[in-house]
Every structure is written in structure tokens, then in C-alpha cells.
């Protein structure tokens, strides 16, 4: 499902003059949700930057209906809402738009349960790799080595492999995406909306304020994350794993840009020593090994069938 940029809706799904920081990846991502799902979407937004970005009553900065909800309740409230709208015969797509905290930490329990129940919702984790709304504190999705206001020495632990954890629930659709690749994200959203059941999309969203980079570089940094292999674009459709461009060309490590190109632009990694970068590189390799192993297994299965 190729996305023709010129044919995307021109309607405003993000209202100019909202309260997002300059260069915010969440407003970029939200626009793509609107472009992909349009008038069918009803958003459920647990506490986070996206609650505040809406700005001040009587206006709100998102161009879609939004039910704001408490931090831990995103997936649960969306479950109820989706059931009610279906019972009323309304053609709608309920979407949870949650941050990494609302997804991987405080919201994980409700997310897991909704996935297990197979609720008909799209759950999007907008991953800016820390609690940005409260001022850059570490989350379960903060990567190894990153500075935050609660990891002054750099985080000592690795990023929680959330897309894999959600995929282990054997739901019909799990995908990773990046605000650097809007066409890929939009195509995945459209695909997700065409599937009944629980769909999960993990959107990588570099935050200029929290990661300490020039706000003009948001999209570039997002693309570098993919080009260096730090973030991998893939999708599980009914359990079948597929790499998406450009990640599909990056299985060969030599095709990837050095991770230093990604790291050096971000203040949060400024203090990293060579051995820290090495550990981070190993983590990247580990992710790729897992993906590659899974792909090989699938290939073997395919071959044995024929």
C-alpha cells in the first residue's frame, strides 16, 4: 500500500498555535494519524505531553475527538469506548495515543490486558524515550547510556523490548514506525485500521528538548536512528515478521551508518565513553540478531511447507 504524499488529506489534524515545543515529534506523528484514519478516529490520550499539547480551554490543539484519561487507563478506557461505539453501530476507529511511560511503564498492565482480550483498537506508543512531560525522567524505554534528570550518570539498563512483548500476545498486527518515515507510518496505520482486533504500533519519536538536539533536526535524527540500525522498522502481520524499508536493506551491518552519527547529535549521549558506545552497539546487534533469527525461522518453515 504505497502512500502518495501529494494525495494525502490536507486537512489540519494538528491545530497551529498549540502548546507543543518547537520541533515536537508528537505533533508530527499526530498529523499522520489524522491523514491515515481521518474522520473515523477517536483518540484516547492518557497523561503525557500529548495531554498538554492540546493547549488551553476553550480551544484544543488536536484536530480529532479526544478523550483524555488518567495515566494508567489508556487501553482500558479505549476498550470501553470501542465497545460502546460498536454497540451503537457507529463506524469508528478508537486509537490510544500514549507516551512511553503510559505504554511501557504505568500503562503496561492495561495494555497487556486489552491485547489479550483482543479489543478492537489501535494502540500507538509515541516513544520519546523518557518522561518528557514531567521534564525528562528515565522510563522503561530510555535507551542504555542516555542522560535524563533521573539518570545523571546515564541509564544503566537497556530499553524494554516493548514491540516484541506486545507481539508475544499474538495479536493480529504489531508494527514499529518512525516519525522520520511518515509514508511508512501512514501505510501501517491504514493497514491496522483494516484489521479487526488489537493493533499495536510503536512510533519512534525523537524529542529535541529531552534528547538535547536542535529542534530543526527532529526528522533527521529519527531517520538516523533507522539508518544506523538503532531503530528497526518492521511489522508482524498475523505473527509473520517482515522488515520494512529502509530497515530491510540494513540486515547487512555494513550497510548501516555507524551509530556514532546518531549519538553525536544528541546532548543526552554526550558523556558516553567508548565502552558505553560499544555496549550500545552490542545491544543494537542483539536486536538485529533476534530479528534475523526470526526471519530465518520463518524462511525454513516456508520451505518445509513447499
Amino acid at each position: 500500500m504505497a502512500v502518495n504524499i501529494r494525495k494525502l488529506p490536507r486537512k489540519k489534524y494538528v491545530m497551529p498555535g498549540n502548546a507543543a515545543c518547537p520541533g515536537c515529534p508528537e505533533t508530527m506523528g499526530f498529523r499522520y494519524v489524522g491523514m491515515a484514519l481521518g474522520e473515523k478516529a477517536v483518540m484516547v490520550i492518557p497523561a503525557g505531553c500529548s495531554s498538554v499539547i492540546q493547549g488551553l480551554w476553550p480551544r484544543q490543539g488536536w484536530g480529532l475527538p479526544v478523550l483524555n484519561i488518567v495515566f494508567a487507563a489508556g487501553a482500558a478506557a479505549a476498550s470501553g469506548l470501542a465497545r460502546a461505539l460498536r454497540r451503537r453501530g457507529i463506524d469508528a476507529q478508537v486509537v490510544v495515543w500514549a507516551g512511553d511511560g503510559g505504554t511501557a511503564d504505568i500503562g503496561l498492565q492495561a495494555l497487556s490486558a486489552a491485547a489479550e482480550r483482543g479489543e478492537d483498537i489501535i494502540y500507538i506508543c509515541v516513544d520519546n524515550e523518557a518522561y518528557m512531560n514531567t521534564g525528562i525522567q528515565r522510563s522503561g524505554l530510555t535507551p542504555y547510556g542516555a542522560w535524563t534528570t533521573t539518570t545523571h550518570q546515564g541509564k544503566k539498563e537497556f530499553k524494554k523490548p516493548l514491540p516484541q512483548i506486545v507481539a508475544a500476545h499474538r495479536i493480529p498486527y504489531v508494527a514499529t514506525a518512525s516519525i522520520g518515515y511518515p509514508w511508512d507510518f501512514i501505510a501501517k496505520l491504514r493497514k491496522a485500521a483494516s484489521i479487526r482486533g488489537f493493533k499495536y504500533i510503536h512510533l519512534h519519536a525523537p524529542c529535541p528538548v529531552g534528547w538535547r538536539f536542535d529542534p530543526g533536526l527532529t526528522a533527521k535524527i529519527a531517520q538516523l536512528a533507522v539508518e544506523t540500525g538503532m531503530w528497526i522498522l518492521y511489522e508482524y502481520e498475523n505473527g509473520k515478521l517482515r522488515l520494512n524499508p529502509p530497515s530491510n536493506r540494513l540486515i547487512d551491518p555494513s550497510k548501516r551508518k555507524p551509530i556514532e552519527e546518531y549519538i553525536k547529535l544528541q546532548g543526552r549521549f554526550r558523556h558516553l565513553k567508548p565502552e558505553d558506545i560499544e555496549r550500545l552497539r552490542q545491544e543494537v546487534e542483539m536486536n538485529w540478531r533476534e530479528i534475523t533469527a526470526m526471519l530465518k525461522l520463518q524462511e525454513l518453515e516456508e520451505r518445509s511447507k513447499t
Partner: protein
Amino acid sequence: MALADPAGHVLPLSLADKGSAGRTGFWRTQRPVLNPERCTGCFMCWLYCPEDVIEMKEGAGPRGQAIPVIDYEYCKGCGVCANVCPVKALEMVDEEKFLHEEVVQREG
């Protein structure tokens, strides 16, 4: 804008509208300025603009191409558009240069 409740209740509801955080054009320290000659009308600036302040005006470029029109009332000057432009048709210019112009437009 806010939604009225027929029963007269005060409700925690807002409606989508521009300027929920005020005239965010004030936030800028730099503004993107277009060189229409260079612009190829590729839509990249429009696609990536986090603030949705860019509109593509079809056929308005010197070669009949679509060109971006930026709403400086709300543009926060992040510079994403200038960075994603493949032909460097957008340049970030210090806001100070426009300060008086703005005041004159407002008050004069």
C-alpha cells in the same frame, strides 16, 4: 471553541481551534524564509511540519510548481522544514530582522 451544554452545566470540553497556546509565532527566534526559485514543490516541508503551519499553494511557484506558504502567526520557527528540504529552498533567518516590521504591521 467550548461546547455549550443545554442543561447549563460548565463542562470540561474544548473544540479544535488554532491558537490553543496563544499566538505561538512569538516563540520564534528564527523564521523559515522561502526561496521560490529553488523550491521544487516536493511537499516535504509540508509533510514534516510539526505545527501544521505550511500550506502548499498549487501552481504559485515561478515555474508553476506548488510552493509552501507559511503561517507566521503560529510558526514556532523550529527549523524542521529547512532541514528536510532536499534543495535548501528554505532558510532560517534571525527573527530580530523582522521585529520592527511586525510591530509596524500590528500597530501602524
